[in-house]
Protein backbone atom coordinates (compact mmCIF):
# COMPACT_ATOMS: atom_id res chain seq x y z
CA UNK A 1 0.00 0.00 0.00
CA UNK A 2 1.69 3.29 1.11
CA UNK A 3 3.50 5.20 3.84
CA UNK A 4 2.02 7.60 6.36
CA UNK A 5 4.30 10.56 6.99
CA UNK A 6 2.40 13.18 8.96
CA UNK A 7 -0.85 13.13 10.79
CA UNK A 8 -3.18 15.50 12.57
CA UNK A 9 -6.23 14.85 14.69
CA UNK A 10 -8.97 16.90 16.35
CA UNK A 11 -10.96 14.62 18.62
CA UNK A 12 -12.61 14.47 22.07
CA UNK A 13 -9.13 13.83 23.52
CA UNK A 14 -6.01 15.98 23.58
CA UNK A 15 -4.81 14.85 20.15
CA UNK A 16 -4.22 18.09 18.24
CA UNK A 17 -0.56 19.14 17.97
CA UNK A 18 0.84 18.21 21.42
CA UNK A 19 -1.01 14.93 21.91
CA UNK A 20 -1.46 13.60 25.44
CA UNK A 21 -3.34 10.30 25.53
CA UNK A 22 -2.67 9.59 29.19
CA UNK A 23 -5.56 11.83 30.34
CA UNK A 24 -8.96 10.47 29.31
CA UNK A 25 -11.60 13.14 28.69
CA UNK A 26 -15.15 11.96 29.32
CA UNK A 27 -18.49 12.52 27.61
CA UNK A 28 -20.71 15.55 28.14
CA UNK A 29 -24.46 14.85 27.98
CA UNK A 30 -23.74 11.34 26.69
CA UNK A 31 -21.61 12.66 23.81
CA UNK A 32 -17.86 12.66 23.28
CA UNK A 33 -17.41 16.06 21.72
CA UNK A 34 -14.22 17.21 20.02
CA UNK A 35 -11.86 19.57 21.79
CA UNK A 36 -11.68 22.26 19.13
CA UNK A 37 -8.56 24.44 18.85
CA UNK A 38 -8.59 28.14 17.92
CA UNK A 39 -8.14 27.45 14.19
CA UNK A 40 -5.42 30.02 13.61
CA UNK A 41 -4.76 28.62 10.11
CA UNK A 42 -8.25 29.43 8.82
CA UNK A 43 -8.95 33.04 7.73
CA UNK A 44 -11.66 34.56 10.03
CA UNK A 45 -13.86 35.49 7.07
CA UNK A 46 -13.86 31.87 5.93
CA UNK A 47 -14.13 30.40 9.43
CA UNK A 48 -17.42 32.16 10.21
CA UNK A 49 -19.10 30.40 7.32
CA UNK A 50 -17.94 26.92 8.25
CA UNK A 51 -20.12 24.33 9.94
CA UNK A 52 -18.50 22.21 12.64
CA UNK A 53 -17.44 19.31 10.40
CA UNK A 54 -15.89 21.63 7.82
CA UNK A 55 -14.18 23.63 10.58
CA UNK A 56 -12.73 20.50 12.19
CA UNK A 57 -11.66 19.05 8.84
CA UNK A 58 -10.01 22.23 7.61
CA UNK A 59 -8.53 22.93 11.04
CA UNK A 60 -6.82 19.55 11.21
CA UNK A 61 -5.70 19.49 7.57
CA UNK A 62 -4.35 23.00 7.06
CA UNK A 63 -1.37 22.71 9.46
CA UNK A 64 -0.26 19.62 7.53
CA UNK A 65 -0.69 21.27 4.15
CA UNK A 66 1.00 24.49 5.24
CA UNK A 67 3.91 22.92 7.12
CA UNK A 68 4.74 19.90 5.01
CA UNK A 69 4.71 21.02 1.43
CA UNK A 70 2.57 20.38 -1.59
CA UNK A 71 0.11 17.61 -2.13
CA UNK A 72 -1.16 16.31 -5.42
CA UNK A 73 -4.68 15.77 -4.20
CA UNK A 74 -7.16 15.79 -1.36
CA UNK A 75 -9.03 12.58 -0.51
CA UNK A 76 -11.62 12.91 2.26
CA UNK A 77 -13.98 10.40 3.81
CA UNK A 78 -17.16 11.35 5.60
CA UNK A 79 -20.54 9.77 6.19
CA UNK A 80 -22.44 12.75 7.54
CA UNK A 81 -20.53 16.00 7.04
CA UNK A 82 -22.84 18.73 5.85
CA UNK A 83 -25.97 17.10 7.27
CA UNK A 84 -26.47 19.78 9.93
CA UNK A 85 -26.45 22.59 7.36
CA UNK A 86 -28.56 20.45 5.04
CA UNK A 87 -31.23 20.12 7.74
CA UNK A 88 -31.02 23.86 8.49
CA UNK A 89 -31.54 24.60 4.80
CA UNK A 90 -34.51 22.21 4.61
CA UNK A 91 -35.96 23.82 7.76
CA UNK A 92 -35.68 27.22 6.09
CA UNK A 93 -37.57 25.95 3.07
CA UNK A 94 -40.43 24.87 5.34
CA UNK A 95 -40.28 27.87 7.67
CA UNK A 96 -40.26 30.47 4.91
CA UNK A 97 -42.58 28.55 2.59
CA UNK A 98 -40.01 28.16 -0.16
CA UNK A 99 -39.48 31.91 -0.17
CA UNK A 100 -36.18 33.76 0.21
CA UNK A 101 -33.45 31.45 1.48
CA UNK A 102 -29.94 32.33 2.65
CA UNK A 103 -27.13 30.76 0.61
CA UNK A 104 -24.79 29.87 3.46
CA UNK A 105 -26.46 26.68 4.69
CA UNK A 106 -26.96 25.56 1.10
CA UNK A 107 -23.29 26.08 0.28
CA UNK A 108 -22.27 24.09 3.37
CA UNK A 109 -24.87 21.38 3.01
CA UNK A 110 -22.92 19.00 0.78
CA UNK A 111 -20.42 16.46 2.14
CA UNK A 112 -17.71 17.61 -0.26
CA UNK A 113 -17.58 21.05 1.42
CA UNK A 114 -14.51 19.93 3.44
CA UNK A 115 -12.39 18.81 0.49
CA UNK A 116 -13.69 21.75 -1.53
CA UNK A 117 -12.78 24.31 1.12
CA UNK A 118 -9.33 22.78 1.54
CA UNK A 119 -8.76 22.96 -2.22
CA UNK A 120 -9.89 26.60 -2.31
CA UNK A 121 -7.92 27.77 0.74
CA UNK A 122 -4.68 26.06 -0.34
CA UNK A 123 -5.25 26.70 -4.09
CA UNK A 124 -4.81 22.99 -4.69
CA UNK A 125 -6.18 22.22 -8.15
CA UNK A 126 -5.26 18.54 -8.06
CA UNK A 127 -7.38 15.44 -7.49
CA UNK A 128 -10.17 16.35 -5.08
CA UNK A 129 -12.67 13.77 -3.99
CA UNK A 130 -14.94 12.86 -1.10
CA UNK A 131 -15.92 9.26 -0.27
CA UNK A 132 -19.28 8.55 1.31
CA UNK A 133 -19.88 4.95 2.19
CA UNK A 134 -21.15 5.22 5.76
CA UNK A 135 -18.91 3.07 7.98
CA UNK A 136 -16.53 2.20 5.15
CA UNK A 137 -16.01 5.71 3.81
CA UNK A 138 -12.49 5.96 5.22
CA UNK A 139 -11.46 2.51 3.99
CA UNK A 140 -12.65 3.43 0.49
CA UNK A 141 -10.62 6.63 0.71
CA UNK A 142 -7.58 4.51 1.67
CA UNK A 143 -8.09 2.28 -1.36
CA UNK A 144 -8.53 5.31 -3.59
CA UNK A 145 -5.24 6.78 -2.31
CA UNK A 146 -3.59 3.41 -2.90
CA UNK A 147 -4.77 3.27 -6.51
CA UNK A 148 -3.72 6.88 -7.13
CA UNK A 149 -0.24 6.18 -5.71
CA UNK A 150 0.04 3.07 -7.88
CA UNK A 151 -0.79 5.15 -10.94
CA UNK A 152 1.26 8.19 -9.91
CA UNK A 153 4.12 6.85 -7.73
CA UNK A 154 5.67 10.28 -7.13
CA UNK A 155 2.52 11.85 -5.78
CA UNK A 156 1.67 12.78 -2.22
CA UNK A 157 -1.92 13.01 -0.97
CA UNK A 158 -3.82 14.48 1.92
CA UNK A 159 -6.01 11.66 3.15
CA UNK A 160 -8.50 12.07 5.94
CA UNK A 161 -11.84 11.42 7.55
CA UNK A 162 -14.29 13.73 9.29
CA UNK A 163 -17.61 13.21 11.00
CA UNK A 164 -19.27 15.30 13.65
CA UNK A 165 -22.18 14.95 16.06
CA UNK A 166 -25.03 17.00 14.68
CA UNK A 167 -28.30 17.59 16.50
CA UNK A 168 -30.30 16.03 13.69
CA UNK A 169 -28.18 12.91 13.21
CA UNK A 170 -27.90 12.35 16.98
CA UNK A 171 -31.68 12.51 17.36
CA UNK A 172 -32.28 10.06 14.52
CA UNK A 173 -29.58 7.66 15.76
CA UNK A 174 -30.89 7.84 19.31
CA UNK A 175 -34.36 6.85 18.11
CA UNK A 176 -32.79 3.98 16.17
CA UNK A 177 -31.13 2.75 19.37
CA UNK A 178 -27.49 3.42 18.45
CA UNK A 179 -26.76 5.51 21.57
CA UNK A 180 -26.80 4.22 25.12
CA UNK A 181 -29.89 5.13 27.13
CA UNK A 182 -27.91 5.28 30.37
CA UNK A 183 -25.43 8.05 31.11
CA UNK A 184 -22.17 6.14 31.57
CA UNK A 185 -18.54 7.08 31.79
CA UNK A 186 -16.40 6.20 28.79
CA UNK A 187 -14.16 4.34 31.26
CA UNK A 188 -17.00 1.82 31.63
CA UNK A 189 -17.91 1.62 27.94
CA UNK A 190 -16.80 -2.00 27.40
CA UNK A 191 -18.41 -3.31 30.59
CA UNK A 192 -21.83 -1.73 30.17
CA UNK A 193 -23.49 -4.79 28.62
CA UNK A 194 -26.26 -2.76 27.02
CA UNK A 195 -27.17 -1.79 23.46
CA UNK A 196 -25.80 1.35 21.83
CA UNK A 197 -22.62 3.32 22.33
CA UNK A 198 -21.47 6.85 23.16
CA UNK A 199 -21.70 9.20 20.18
CA UNK A 200 -18.41 10.67 19.08
CA UNK A 201 -16.69 12.76 16.45
CA UNK A 202 -13.24 13.55 15.09
CA UNK A 203 -11.30 14.89 12.14
CA UNK A 204 -8.19 12.89 11.27
CA UNK A 205 -5.74 13.75 8.49
CA UNK A 206 -2.68 12.01 7.06
CA UNK A 207 -0.06 12.88 4.47
CA UNK A 208 0.68 9.73 2.47
CA UNK A 209 3.09 8.79 -0.29
CA UNK A 210 5.35 5.95 -1.49
CA UNK A 211 8.50 7.10 0.32
CA UNK A 212 9.65 4.86 3.17
CA UNK A 213 12.30 7.20 4.56
CA UNK A 214 11.05 9.21 7.50
CA UNK A 215 7.60 7.64 7.50
CA UNK A 216 5.56 7.17 10.71
CA UNK A 217 4.04 3.92 9.57
CA UNK A 218 3.21 1.79 6.57
CA UNK A 219 -0.32 0.79 5.70
CA UNK A 220 0.28 -2.79 4.58
CA UNK A 221 -3.24 -3.87 3.63
CA UNK A 222 -6.90 -3.05 3.96
CA UNK A 223 -9.98 -5.11 3.25
CA UNK A 224 -13.70 -4.46 3.61
CA UNK A 225 -16.92 -6.39 3.40
CA UNK A 226 -20.64 -6.01 3.91
CA UNK A 227 -22.17 -8.86 5.86
CA UNK A 228 -24.05 -9.67 9.03
CA UNK A 229 -22.89 -13.30 8.94
CA UNK A 230 -20.16 -13.82 11.56
CA UNK A 231 -18.86 -16.95 9.79
CA UNK A 232 -18.27 -15.10 6.51
CA UNK A 233 -16.47 -12.29 8.36
CA UNK A 234 -14.38 -14.82 10.30
CA UNK A 235 -13.37 -16.59 7.08
CA UNK A 236 -12.39 -13.28 5.46
CA UNK A 237 -10.39 -12.09 8.49
CA UNK A 238 -8.59 -15.44 8.71
CA UNK A 239 -7.65 -15.16 5.02
CA UNK A 240 -6.54 -11.54 5.52
CA UNK A 241 -4.22 -12.55 8.36
CA UNK A 242 -2.81 -15.55 6.45
CA UNK A 243 -2.17 -13.39 3.42
CA UNK A 244 -0.45 -10.48 5.11
CA UNK A 245 1.07 -11.60 8.43
CA UNK A 246 4.14 -13.77 8.91
CA UNK A 247 3.39 -16.56 11.43
CA UNK A 248 -0.27 -15.51 11.11
CA UNK A 249 0.16 -13.38 14.21
CA UNK A 250 -0.27 -9.66 14.84
CA UNK A 251 1.62 -7.92 17.66
CA UNK A 252 -1.55 -6.09 18.71
CA UNK A 253 -5.23 -6.18 17.83
CA UNK A 254 -6.61 -2.65 17.88
CA UNK A 255 -10.30 -3.31 18.29
CA UNK A 256 -13.05 -0.94 17.17
CA UNK A 257 -15.39 -2.32 19.85
CA UNK A 258 -17.84 0.39 20.86
CA UNK A 259 -19.60 -1.09 23.91
CA UNK A 260 -22.75 -2.10 22.03
CA UNK A 261 -23.52 -5.57 23.37
CA UNK A 262 -25.31 -6.46 20.11
CA UNK A 263 -21.99 -6.18 18.24
CA UNK A 264 -19.70 -7.66 20.91
CA UNK A 265 -19.73 -11.11 19.26
CA UNK A 266 -17.99 -9.72 16.15
CA UNK A 267 -15.15 -8.39 18.28
CA UNK A 268 -14.95 -11.61 20.28
CA UNK A 269 -14.64 -13.45 16.97
CA UNK A 270 -11.86 -11.10 15.80
CA UNK A 271 -9.98 -11.63 19.09
CA UNK A 272 -10.29 -15.40 18.67
CA UNK A 273 -9.02 -15.26 15.08
CA UNK A 274 -6.10 -13.01 16.10
CA UNK A 275 -5.18 -15.60 18.76
CA UNK A 276 -5.15 -15.78 22.54
CA UNK A 277 -1.59 -14.48 22.77
CA UNK A 278 -2.35 -11.30 20.83
CA UNK A 279 -2.95 -8.37 23.20
CA UNK A 280 -6.05 -6.24 22.56
CA UNK A 281 -6.39 -2.49 22.83
CA UNK A 282 -9.47 -0.31 22.34
CA UNK A 283 -9.94 3.24 21.10
CA UNK A 284 -13.67 4.04 20.82
CA UNK A 285 -13.89 5.08 24.48
CA UNK A 286 -11.64 7.94 23.36
CA UNK A 287 -13.36 9.07 20.17
CA UNK A 288 -16.85 7.62 20.58
CA UNK A 289 -18.83 5.79 17.93
CA UNK A 290 -19.18 7.45 14.55
CA UNK A 291 -19.00 6.16 10.96
CA UNK A 292 -15.37 7.02 10.13
CA UNK A 293 -13.94 6.14 13.57
CA UNK A 294 -11.51 3.65 12.00
CA UNK A 295 -9.48 6.69 10.86
CA UNK A 296 -9.03 7.57 14.53
CA UNK A 297 -7.94 3.96 15.06
CA UNK A 298 -5.30 4.34 12.36
CA UNK A 299 -4.12 7.59 13.93
CA UNK A 300 -3.85 5.79 17.30
CA UNK A 301 -1.82 3.00 15.67
CA UNK A 302 0.66 5.58 14.35
CA UNK A 303 0.87 7.14 17.83
CA UNK A 304 1.56 3.72 19.40
CA UNK A 305 4.50 3.21 17.03
CA UNK A 306 5.77 6.70 17.87
CA UNK A 307 5.30 6.59 21.65
CA UNK A 308 6.23 2.96 22.22
CA UNK A 309 3.62 2.79 24.96
CA UNK A 310 -0.09 2.39 25.45
CA UNK A 311 -2.01 4.32 28.10
CA UNK A 312 -3.67 2.19 30.75
CA UNK A 313 -7.23 3.04 29.71
CA UNK A 314 -6.66 1.42 26.29
CA UNK A 315 -5.65 -2.00 27.57
CA UNK A 316 -6.45 -2.18 31.27
CA UNK A 317 -2.78 -1.97 32.20
CA UNK A 318 0.11 0.22 31.07
CA UNK A 319 2.03 -1.50 28.33
CA UNK A 320 5.46 -0.52 27.07
CA UNK A 321 5.68 -1.90 23.61
CA UNK A 322 7.83 -2.29 20.57
CA UNK A 323 5.21 -3.48 18.16
CA UNK A 324 6.15 -4.09 14.56
CA UNK A 325 2.61 -4.48 13.29
CA UNK A 326 -0.92 -3.71 14.42
CA UNK A 327 -4.11 -5.31 13.14
CA UNK A 328 -7.24 -3.14 13.21
CA UNK A 329 -10.73 -4.58 13.05
CA UNK A 330 -13.81 -2.39 12.96
CA UNK A 331 -17.49 -3.06 12.52
CA UNK A 332 -19.99 -0.34 11.71
CA UNK A 333 -23.37 -1.33 13.08
CA UNK A 334 -22.67 -4.99 12.42
CA UNK A 335 -23.00 -4.88 8.63
CA UNK A 336 -19.90 -3.02 7.43
CA UNK A 337 -16.55 -4.51 8.46
CA UNK A 338 -12.96 -3.53 7.81
CA UNK A 339 -9.52 -4.94 8.50
CA UNK A 340 -6.34 -2.88 8.33
CA UNK A 341 -2.77 -3.95 8.85
CA UNK A 342 -0.26 -1.27 9.81
CA UNK A 343 3.45 -1.80 10.36
CA UNK A 344 6.43 0.28 11.39
CA UNK A 345 7.96 1.95 8.33
Amino acid at each position, binding site marked *: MFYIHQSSCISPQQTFKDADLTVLHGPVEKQLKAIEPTYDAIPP*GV*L*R*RMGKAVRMGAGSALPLLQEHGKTDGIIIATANAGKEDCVKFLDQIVQ*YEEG*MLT*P*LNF*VQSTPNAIAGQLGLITKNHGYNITHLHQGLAFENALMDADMRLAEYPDHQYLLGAVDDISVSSYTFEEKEGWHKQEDISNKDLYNADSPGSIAGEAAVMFLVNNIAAGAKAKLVAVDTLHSTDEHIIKERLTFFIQQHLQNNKADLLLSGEDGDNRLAHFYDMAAAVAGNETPIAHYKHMCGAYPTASAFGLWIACEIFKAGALPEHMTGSLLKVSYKNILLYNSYRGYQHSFMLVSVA
Partner: protein
Amino acid sequence: METAALKQQLKKQIVEFLNLISVNPDDIKDDEPLFGEGLRLDSIDSIELIVLLNREYGIVIEDPKEGRKILTSINTMADYIEKHRTK
Protein backbone atom coordinates in the same frame (compact mmCIF):
# COMPACT_ATOMS: atom_id res chain seq x y z
CA MET B 1 -39.16 52.36 16.94
CA GLU B 2 -36.71 55.21 17.26
CA THR B 3 -33.87 55.42 14.74
CA ALA B 4 -31.17 54.82 17.34
CA ALA B 5 -32.94 51.69 18.61
CA LEU B 6 -33.48 50.46 15.05
CA LYS B 7 -29.78 50.87 14.27
CA GLN B 8 -28.82 48.98 17.39
CA GLN B 9 -31.22 46.15 16.54
CA LEU B 10 -29.90 46.07 12.97
CA LYS B 11 -26.30 45.74 14.16
CA LYS B 12 -27.23 42.78 16.36
CA GLN B 13 -29.12 41.14 13.51
CA ILE B 14 -26.21 41.58 11.09
CA VAL B 15 -23.75 40.01 13.55
CA GLU B 16 -26.15 37.10 14.14
CA PHE B 17 -27.17 36.52 10.50
CA LEU B 18 -23.62 36.70 9.15
CA ASN B 19 -22.10 34.85 12.12
CA LEU B 20 -19.52 37.63 12.63
CA ILE B 21 -17.99 35.77 15.55
CA SER B 22 -15.30 38.32 16.37
CA VAL B 23 -17.46 41.46 15.98
CA ASN B 24 -19.23 43.22 18.86
CA PRO B 25 -22.40 44.93 17.54
CA ASP B 26 -21.55 48.04 19.60
CA ASP B 27 -18.26 48.37 17.70
CA ILE B 28 -19.96 48.82 14.31
CA LYS B 29 -20.10 52.53 13.48
CA ASP B 30 -23.24 53.91 11.88
CA ASP B 31 -21.42 55.37 8.89
CA GLU B 32 -18.84 52.60 8.53
CA PRO B 33 -18.80 50.95 5.04
CA LEU B 34 -20.14 47.41 5.21
CA PHE B 35 -18.40 46.20 2.02
CA GLY B 36 -14.86 46.54 0.68
CA GLU B 37 -13.50 48.12 3.85
CA GLY B 38 -14.99 48.46 7.32
CA LEU B 39 -16.71 45.14 8.05
CA ARG B 40 -15.24 43.69 4.82
CA LEU B 41 -18.40 41.86 3.83
CA ASP B 42 -18.60 40.12 0.44
CA SER B 43 -21.14 39.14 -2.21
CA ILE B 44 -22.53 36.16 -0.28
CA ASP B 45 -23.08 38.47 2.71
CA SER B 46 -25.03 40.87 0.49
CA ILE B 47 -27.51 38.09 -0.30
CA GLU B 48 -27.77 37.27 3.41
CA LEU B 49 -28.53 40.97 4.14
CA ILE B 50 -31.21 41.11 1.43
CA VAL B 51 -32.83 38.03 3.00
CA LEU B 52 -32.52 39.69 6.45
CA LEU B 53 -34.38 42.79 5.22
CA ASN B 54 -37.10 40.60 3.74
CA ARG B 55 -37.58 38.35 6.76
CA GLU B 56 -37.30 40.95 9.52
CA TYR B 57 -38.78 44.05 7.89
CA GLY B 58 -40.83 42.76 4.95
CA ILE B 59 -38.69 44.64 2.44
CA VAL B 60 -38.13 43.22 -1.04
CA ILE B 61 -35.17 44.58 -3.00
CA GLU B 62 -35.43 43.67 -6.66
CA ASP B 63 -33.07 46.18 -8.29
CA PRO B 64 -29.37 45.29 -7.66
CA LYS B 65 -28.32 48.94 -8.18
CA GLU B 66 -30.77 50.03 -5.51
CA GLY B 67 -29.51 47.24 -3.22
CA ARG B 68 -25.95 48.47 -3.51
CA LYS B 69 -26.96 51.92 -2.24
CA ILE B 70 -29.13 50.57 0.57
CA LEU B 71 -26.44 48.22 1.88
CA THR B 72 -23.71 50.87 2.06
CA SER B 73 -23.78 51.37 5.85
CA ILE B 74 -25.95 51.02 8.95
CA ASN B 75 -27.19 54.59 8.32
CA THR B 76 -28.37 53.84 4.77
CA MET B 77 -29.98 50.55 5.78
CA ALA B 78 -31.81 52.08 8.74
CA ASP B 79 -32.98 55.01 6.61
CA TYR B 80 -34.43 52.64 3.96
CA ILE B 81 -36.05 50.40 6.58
CA GLU B 82 -37.82 53.37 8.25
CA LYS B 83 -39.28 54.43 4.91
CA HIS B 84 -40.21 51.04 3.43
CA ARG B 85 -40.78 48.50 6.22
CA THR B 86 -44.03 46.56 6.09
CA LYS B 87 -43.56 44.81 9.45
